[in-house]
């Protein structure tokens, strides 16, 4: 797909999302009689549809144009209050949005829609037309409904013959027009769909010879006569997306005894040959054009423009021309756009502060950053080495050390800056779930209020993208298994409308995403019984509530009484857990019968980089994520003795479990005289990691270890130190789970 099409697709997706969000907002209005009052949402939907139609027209995607136009007509009627918006209409618009999405996908992939979807489109068009005011369900209408999309438009064209207007469209291009990528032929095709271009006169006299030509400068122009039942605004809309790069003039031919001075256009164009070109191409008879010398010489009569024409100026015409005047086509000037001074009101510009960046470019920068960080670490190591060897030959060593440290600080700023580019607000992703919640609830006859909070919480783009599917799955489960049907809820003394909350917030260097419902809660006994039946848990196993609830993530475990196409097969939650674990996240569940359930997912802020603390265990160096460290203490001989072989210590009156990393990872006994405990936490859980030496802070770019090492529990990746050694990075969440 070429770059321009990609931009078109991105813009359409943005507009479709706005459209859907507005429709869902309207669907959440309890009183259907108030739907037509939500003008803000109606206008949002209209503008989105209008924008899609316009940009599709630029590319010549006329199926999209036709479909969007029908929807736009209905929305316009809603804006004008000539029709009342109903819940059925909103449902129709949602389905129409889906169909539009398919049309856009087909066009951008240069594919044809299959017959089934073509028929869906025809049916949707009929339904859209059926909501229009004055629509009669007569036999004549039924026979029209049998026709194709093309024929429907042809019929409408025929009906409007007597309303056909004749427009003179004068087009010149600003110097950057060619670089916009917009096709002028697409504009011609679009105009031909609106009406008929009866005359197209290319203006060639400005084109220089080949040796003097700047190929990227548009010298060519066009003078068109368009016959169509359209307004000037509708013609201007065709040029909406190139408005800044086109010098456009639109004049209306009208049978009238009064006429405006076409010389105004000639003056603006400052093209000597334009007048003759227009005469030769039969745009206007010669008498219409008056030279300034002639008007100066002749006796003048001032003609006052009638009140129904916008009075722009008085026209001086020679006395004899008034007397000899014959009925002729006159020109009523609608508008002349002066490119230098006018600010187009319909121009569509991206806000100057925003910039679309291909995320792969950011990934490349991060990779380079990681290499720079490693090289800088080497520099620091060498500096330290020189200092240790008492190298006094070069007194610049301290300067070198200072520079290296400065470089490290700067790299941190740059690194943080690049990482920040990748951070996006989760709210944009969360809002897309509204439609899913809406559709799922309706499908199974449940009434659900969906509340999103913390949408401005930021998370790495990759994490947001990869958490989306698991969240959708869990939301569907909440609605299907959690929230009861209205009758059951009323019987339990709950409001008929259930509630599902999706919230996000930062916590200790992680992001927490919670899905909470006020449904029937998880039945511990049934889950345990099913897990025992499946052989996933032994009979008599002593599991905490949290461990029992987490069994729902085991493959094949579903306590659903019946399987729906939404959930219940026992396949899916295991994939959800795996996806979250792949993101170095964890899941916790709380639940209470008839009160509801809460699933909390903890995720790292980013997958690429962490600030870590370097420790030595045996022969190997390890990195502990800095955010997870609470404190470091020395394990003195006295404390070792007080442990009496147990795996916990008394930390200021509380029991702290201790994990001997050497034993866990089968490290050799070190020669270190000291042992240290690094107390780490993940959420509310804490554990002390028994290590040998503490080596200090270390900013780390996480490198994946590869498939050979992916099953090592408790290790999430590796990092290359300045010395060239590999340090393994602890997965604190996994380690804490193992210690419990």
């Amino acid at each position, binding site marked *: 797909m070429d770059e321009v099409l990609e931009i078109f697709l991105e813009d359409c997706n943005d507009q479709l999302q706005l459209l859907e969000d507005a429709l869902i907002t309207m669907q959440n209005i309890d009183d259907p009689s108030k739907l037509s009052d939500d003008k803000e949402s109606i206008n949002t939907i209209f503008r989105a549809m209008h924008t899609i139609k316009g940009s599709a027209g630029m590319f010549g995607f006329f199926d999209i144009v036709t479909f969007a136009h029908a929807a736009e007509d209905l929305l316009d009627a809603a804006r004008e209050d000539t029709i009342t918006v109903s819940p059925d209409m909103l449902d129709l618009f949602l389905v129409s949005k889906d169909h539009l999405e398919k049309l856009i996908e087909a066009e951008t992939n240069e594919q044809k829609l299959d017959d089934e979807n073509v028929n869906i489109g025809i049916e949707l068009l009929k339904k859209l037309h059926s909501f229009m005011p004055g629509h009669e369900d007569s036999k004549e209408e039924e026979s029209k409904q049998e026709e194709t999309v093309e024929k429907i438009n042809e019929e409408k064209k025929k009906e409007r013959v007597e309303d056909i207007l004749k427009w003179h469209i004068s087009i010149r291009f600003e110097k950057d027009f*060619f*670089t916009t990528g917009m*096709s*002028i*032929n697409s504009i*011609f*095709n679009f105009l031909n769909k609106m009406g008929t271009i009866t005359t*197209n*006169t*290319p203006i*060639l006299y400005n*084109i*220089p*010879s*080949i*040796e003097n*030509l700047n*190929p*990227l400068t*548009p*010298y*060519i122009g*066009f003078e068109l006569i368009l016959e169509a039942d359209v307004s000037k605004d509708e013609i201007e809309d065709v040029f909406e997306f190139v408005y800044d790069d086109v010098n456009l003039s639109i004049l209306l031919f009208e049978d009238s005894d009064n006429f405006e001075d076409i010389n105004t256009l000639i003056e603006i164009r400052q093209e000597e040959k334009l007048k003759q070109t227009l005469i030769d191409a039969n745009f206007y008879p010669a008498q219409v054009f008056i030279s300034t010398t002639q008007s100066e010489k002749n006796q003048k009569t001032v003609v006052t423009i009638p009140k129904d024409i916008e009075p722009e100026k008085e026209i001086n015409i020679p006395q004899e021309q008034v007397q000899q005047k014959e009925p002729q086509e006159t020109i009523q000037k609608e508008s002349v756009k002066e490119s230098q001074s006018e600010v187009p009101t319909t121009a569509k510009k991206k806000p100057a502060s925003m910039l679309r960046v291909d995320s792969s470019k950011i990934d490349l920068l991060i990779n380079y950053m990681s290499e720079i960080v490693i090289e800088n670490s080497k520099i620091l190591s060498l500096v330290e080495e020189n200092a240790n060897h008492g190298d006094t030959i070069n007194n610049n060593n301290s300067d070198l050390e200072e520079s290296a440290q400065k470089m490290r600080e700067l790299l941190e700023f740059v690194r943080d800056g690049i990482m920040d580019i990748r951070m996006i607000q989760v709210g944009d992703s969360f809002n897309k779930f509204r439609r899913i919640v809406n559709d799922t609830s309706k499908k199974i006859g449940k009434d659900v209020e969906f509340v999103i909070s913390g949408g401005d919480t930021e998370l790495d783009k990759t994490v947001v993208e990869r958490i989306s599917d698991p969240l959708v799955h869990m939301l569907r489960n909440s609605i299907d298994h959690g929230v009861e049907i209205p009758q059951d809820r009323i019987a339990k003394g709950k409001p008929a409308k259930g509630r599902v909350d999706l919230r996000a917030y930062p916590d200790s260097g992680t992001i927490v995403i919670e899905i909470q419902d006020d449904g029937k809660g998880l039945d511990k006994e049934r889950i345990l019984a099913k897990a025992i039946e499946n052989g996933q848990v032994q009979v008599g196993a002593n599991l905490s509530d949290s461990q029992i609830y987490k069994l729902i993530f085991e493959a094949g475990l579903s306590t659903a009484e019946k399987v729906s196409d939404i959930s219940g097969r026992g396949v899916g939650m295991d994939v959800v857990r795996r996806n979250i674990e792949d993101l170095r996240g964890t899941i916790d569940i709380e639940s209470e019968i008839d009160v509801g359930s809460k699933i909390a997912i903890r995720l790292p802020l980013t997958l690429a980089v962490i600030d870590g603390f370097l420790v030595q265990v045996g022969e190997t160096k390890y990195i502990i994520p800095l955010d997870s460290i609470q404190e470091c203490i020395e394990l003195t001989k006295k404390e070792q003795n007080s442990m009496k072989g147990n795996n916990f210590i008394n930390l200021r009156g509380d029991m702290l479990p201790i994990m001997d990393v050497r034993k866990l990872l089968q490290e050799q006994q070190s020669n270190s005289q000291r042992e240290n405990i690094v107390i780490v936490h993940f959420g509310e859980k804490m554990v002390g990691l028994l290590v040998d030496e503490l080596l200090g802070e270390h900013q780390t770019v996480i490198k994946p270890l590869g498939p050979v090492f992916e099953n090592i529990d408790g290790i999430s990746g590796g990092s290359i130190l300045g010395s060239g050694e590999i340090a393994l990075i602890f997965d604190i969440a996994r380690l804490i789970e193992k210690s419990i």
Partner: protein
Amino acid sequence: MNLTVEHDITIYEAEALQTLFSEFLLKADDVITLDMSNVEKIDMVGIQLLLSLTISVKNSNKKIQFINISEEILHEIKTSNTHISLAIETNAND
């Protein structure tokens, strides 16, 4: 004298083609034939380029003809109504 255009005639090739055409015109004899058989895409930049070449040919008292134009290219040229200025017959595809 024949010149076969080896690539498309769009904004991407325009500058190179302008140089090519300028140089070719200097050494071309009275009748220039531009073979468009390898041209699959053309845009308004390309059409303007051909128009400029046509203007220069006429100013040099020479003649130019375009041959082996595909239907797609012909359609683009006709849509902009520039086929007349390029002296391209609407049924020409020799």
